[in-house]
């Protein structure tokens, strides 16, 4: 790779480069920002991501394969990059006042946030298993730290430690999977794997084992049952602003890797893998939704909800081996991720608004009577809950609709039925939150922070408006098909 | 496998060991004499002519000393530690060229134990990185708090300065375009690298002082605080081994510095008379060793926190800057004739 070649490569991943350099610079600049003015760091972090977002949006049609095929920039990666950067910016908005309230203001918080966003962006463009591994680490390590940033509060430390141990364990499994795939095909590049399979030089048994390892390792990251054990504890213990971002970013990045790897490199293995995906998706939806019913703590409830949602996203992947459905698979998964991101941010901003003191105001009872004193918060939370349930005309409904449609196209009506039934089950606990807010008496306490309100109402409005005019969004997601 | 080659290797290895050990013996003598002169004394002058047999007398004395092993010490490691300290010091010079290729009994023989290997510098960094163990194990196995403190301090110190040391190697590597020490010496045919690398030499010299635990960086043995540091509990020949390791390391780092920055075995008429190589190298090593002794006689010991702060906050950034400058200049002016 000569110099001009390298600069062309760097240009293709310019948004990523901007975020990484910005993070490094912010680390230094933050030293000169006094403790009382850490809001400036937050602002700077948001500006960096905004700049990167603008670059990405300005060249949405960019398609390039650079760094010797290790990086593929295409519609898929552009879609996800926008999603990650948007989530990052919203996360800064959610964090700013929360951190101040909890006395957690550290400049490194935003730096780590930028780094984890850059890891996710790298994941979106990764088309080599080595890069996938590095992206996974780059997005996970800052999250481990962020989960424990409320140290010495014990459950934050517990959350960080659990996330770290299980996360490293799952990363280890991913590496093992990569090693097996390499052993089977002699390459780590996704394109090279496809070539090896078509040429018939790949050891298929080993390859299936490797793919299964990858699925397990990444399944940990996105919290598929039975690899979900860590989720409730980690989500509950981590500071809420971190959890909000973790629930969206880490999940989307994990699915980015799963979608890219399986659809691009492993369609030939679908005979072996589709039944596995089928069972995983069914288990995840059932367990996530059923256990969520028992939860009284809103953070745990949302944690189980995020598990259940991972199941719905996985639904899109089940028919991935059928070449005529694969495009719809990607489109509906991406669309669902987007819907999930909007819905989660709406819900989490309300949760953060109600959590005045760390760990307090998180029980369902604390939401009783919210509609009287804070009608806007109650309304946004209601929209989020309806979207999670999948009630039209919200974005969540369309997300589920497209996923189920893909599933029917692929010929899995049984699984679609399970999906619908579990959605009905989920209505019970989602709507219970609404019932508490509107029909119970209570004295809820919430803070009034403009950024939080903007984030909450804006994403709630998006949920409804985009839900009504969803066509362009889905068209965009469909364009994002991998090549 | 050529039998003559094996014999050649064995002879060279034995020669290297002999050189190191005699070098150690006479370095102690050299240091005492030089220190004495710097302090306006005379120094050892009783044993033999000009006191030249003093090292022998010291050796005999140490052999007859009683060897103590503390009761609660970890015996195996306690005995092993001095050996582990001395071996890296003795083998580090294996890749060093003492001269070019000479013709002896009809054989072409290169004056270096390992010959011309393309990873000479990596070998040196590898050996320096394991040379920490002996000291830290000695400190731990003695079951003595002063020894343990000394061991831990020395580990921290050596790890910290190893970074600057490693970066110091990079300048000559970049200039010569090879990691082979022979290549680096050949690269200095025109001009010694000390001219192109003034900053690099400075960093390298300071880091080596710390690496061999010499004054003013002799923290692990700071008498006032730690009695004798990691070798507090050692006596007799085991003590002598630590002593030997330190002095052999001094010789080794001086020889390495001479090779990297001061033209190695090269000097006038070297191409006509290859046997001059070892002599030139010896002269350069002697001068560098004198520098180390001079520093010891002049500078007081640093405080421990000063030492660490200096290593991390000044030396390492300066070393990085040097690498950056060197690489930048080589990139921008490829035809500099370097």
């Amino acid at each position, binding site marked *: 790779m000569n110099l001009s070649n390298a600069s062309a490569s760097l240009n293709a991943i310019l948004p990523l480069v901007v975020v990484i350099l910005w993070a490094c610079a912010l680390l230094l600049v933050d030293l000169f920002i006094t403790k009382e003015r850490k809001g400036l760091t937050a602002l700077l972090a948001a500006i960096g991501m905004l700049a990167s977002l603008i670059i990405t949006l300005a060249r949405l049609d960019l398609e390039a394969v650079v760094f010797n095929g290790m990086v593929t920039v295409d519609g898929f990666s552009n879609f996800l990059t926008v999603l990650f950067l948007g989530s990052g910016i919203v996360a800064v908005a959610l964090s700013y006042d929360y951190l101040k309230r*909890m006395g957690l203001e550290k400049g490194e918080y935003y730096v780590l946030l930028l780094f984890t966003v850059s890891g996710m962006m790298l994941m979106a463009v990764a088309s080599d298993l080595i890069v996938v591994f590095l992206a996974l680490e780059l997005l996970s390590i800052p999250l481990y730290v962020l989960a424990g940033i409320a140290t*010495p509060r014990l459950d934050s430390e517990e959350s960080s430690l659990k996330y770290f141990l299980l996360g490293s364990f799952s990363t280890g499994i991913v590496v093992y999977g990569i090693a097996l795939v390499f052993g089977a095909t002699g390459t780590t590049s996704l394109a090279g794997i496809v070539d090896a399979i078509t040429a018939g030089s790949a050891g298929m048994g080993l390859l299936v084992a490797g793919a299964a390892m990858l699925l397990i390792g990444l399944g940990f990251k996105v919290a598929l049952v039975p690899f979900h054990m860590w989720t409730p504890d980690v989500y509950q213990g981590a500071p809420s602003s971190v959890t909000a971002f973790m629930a969206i970013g880490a999940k989307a990045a994990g699915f980015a890797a799963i979608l890219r790897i399986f659809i691009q490199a492993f369609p030939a293995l679908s005979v072996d893998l589709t039944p596995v995906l089928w069972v995983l998706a069914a288990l995840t939806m059932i367990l996530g939704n059923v256990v969520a019913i028992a939860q009284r703590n809103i953070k745990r409830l949302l944690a189980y909800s995020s598990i259940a949602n991972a199941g719905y996203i996985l639904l899109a992947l089940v028919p991935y081996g059928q070449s005529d459905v694969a495009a719809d698979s990607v489109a509906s998964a991406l669309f669902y991720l987007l819907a999930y991101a909007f819905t989660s941010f709406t819900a989490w901003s309300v949760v953060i608004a109600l959590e005045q003191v760390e760990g307090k105001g998180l029980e369902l009872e604390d939401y009783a009577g919210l509609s009287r004193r804070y009608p806007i918060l109650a309304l946004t939370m209601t929209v989020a809950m309806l979207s999670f349930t999948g009630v039209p005309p919200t974005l969540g409904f369309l997300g589920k609709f497209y996923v189920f449609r893909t599933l029917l196209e692929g010929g899995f009506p049984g699984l679609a039925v399970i999906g619908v039934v579990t959605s009905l089950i989920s209505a019970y606990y989602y709507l219970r939150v609404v019932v508490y807010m509107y029909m119970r008496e209570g004295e809820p306490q919430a803070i009034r922070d403009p950024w939080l309100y903007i984030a909450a109402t804006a994403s709630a409005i998006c949920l409804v408006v985009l839900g009504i005019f969803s066509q362009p969004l889905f068209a965009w997601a469909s364009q994002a098909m991998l090549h | 496998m050529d039998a003559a080659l094996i014999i050649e290797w064995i002879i060279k290895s034995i020669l290297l060991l002999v050189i190191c050990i005699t070098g150690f013996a006479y370095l102690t003598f050299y240091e005492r004499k030089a220190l004495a002169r710097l302090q306006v004394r005379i120094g050892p002058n009783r044993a033999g002519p000009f006191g030249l047999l003093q090292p022998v007398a010291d050796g005999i004395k140490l052999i007859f000393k009683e060897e103590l092993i503390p009761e609660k010490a970890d015996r195996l490691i306690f005995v092993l530690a001095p050996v582990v300290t001395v071996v890296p010091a003795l083998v580090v010079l294996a890749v060093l060229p003492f001269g070019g290729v000479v013709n002896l009994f009809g054989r072409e023989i290169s004056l270096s134990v390992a010959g011309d290997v393309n990873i000479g510098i990596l070998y040196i960094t590898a050996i320096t990185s394991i040379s920490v*163990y002996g000291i830290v194990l000695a400190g731990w196995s003695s079951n003595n708090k002063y020894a343990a403190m000394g061991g831990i301090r020395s580990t921290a110190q050596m790890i910290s300065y190893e970074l600057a040391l490693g970066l110091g190697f990079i300048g000559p590597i970049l200039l010569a375009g090879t990691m082979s020490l022979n290549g680096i010496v050949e690269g200095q045919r025109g001009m010694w690298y000390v001219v192109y690398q003034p900053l690099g030499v400075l960093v390298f010299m300071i880091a080596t002082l710390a690496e061999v635990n010499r004054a003013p960086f002799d923290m692990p043995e700071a008498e006032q605080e730690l009695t004798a540091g990691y070798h507090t509990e050692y006596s007799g020949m085991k003590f002598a081994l630590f002593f030997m390791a330190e002095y052999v390391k001094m010789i080794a780092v001086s020889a390495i510095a001479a090779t990297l920055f001061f033209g190695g075995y090269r000097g006038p008429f070297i191409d006509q008379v290859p046997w001059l190589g070892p002599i030139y190298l010896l002269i350069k090593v002697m001068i560098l060793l004198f520098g180390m002794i001079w520093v010891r006689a002049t500078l007081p010991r640093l405080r421990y926190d000063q030492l660490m702060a200096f290593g991390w906050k000044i030396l390492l950034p300066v070393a990085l800057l040097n690498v950056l400058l060197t690489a930048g200049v080589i990139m921008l002016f490829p035809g500099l004739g370097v």
Partner: protein
Amino acid sequence: MIPDIVLFIILALVAVASAVGMLFSKNAIYSALNLILNFSSVAVLYLILGAPFIALAQVTVYAGAIMVLFLFVIMLLGAERLRRSETLPYQQPVSIILAAILAVVAIYALLFRPLGIEAASVANPDFSSPAAMAEMLFNEYLLPFEVTSILLLVAMIGAIVLTRKRQRRVQR
């Protein structure tokens, strides 16, 4: 060839013995030392394979830098004496069975190569020279190389953020 094989057998025995020693040492320091020995003998194996760069990197990084930190931490914490950890009653039999299965599968795979694994081809002798390694790292693997440096930076920031004691000002 014969000296190579003799050397290989000796080194392999040392490597295996030190690995076993590491597992069974009661004293954490001895475990660490065994591990160092293991790394070093593996490094010499690389040397026999004609990969001096990897060998010396192995010594510098693993046997040198990383294990020194291990020893350092063990000594600072005074954690030499391992407490007997609680074992589950079924742990031992299960582990023995699993190990036996692993051994059988490994031998089977080695002898019959059922998964289509070919014997490793002899690499170009120049393959592991420092120049060739650098060529690989800075051309083909440029991106992973750079990302790794970012990764290390992040890990360092993380460790400092988590361990540095700072007074939290909680507003109650």
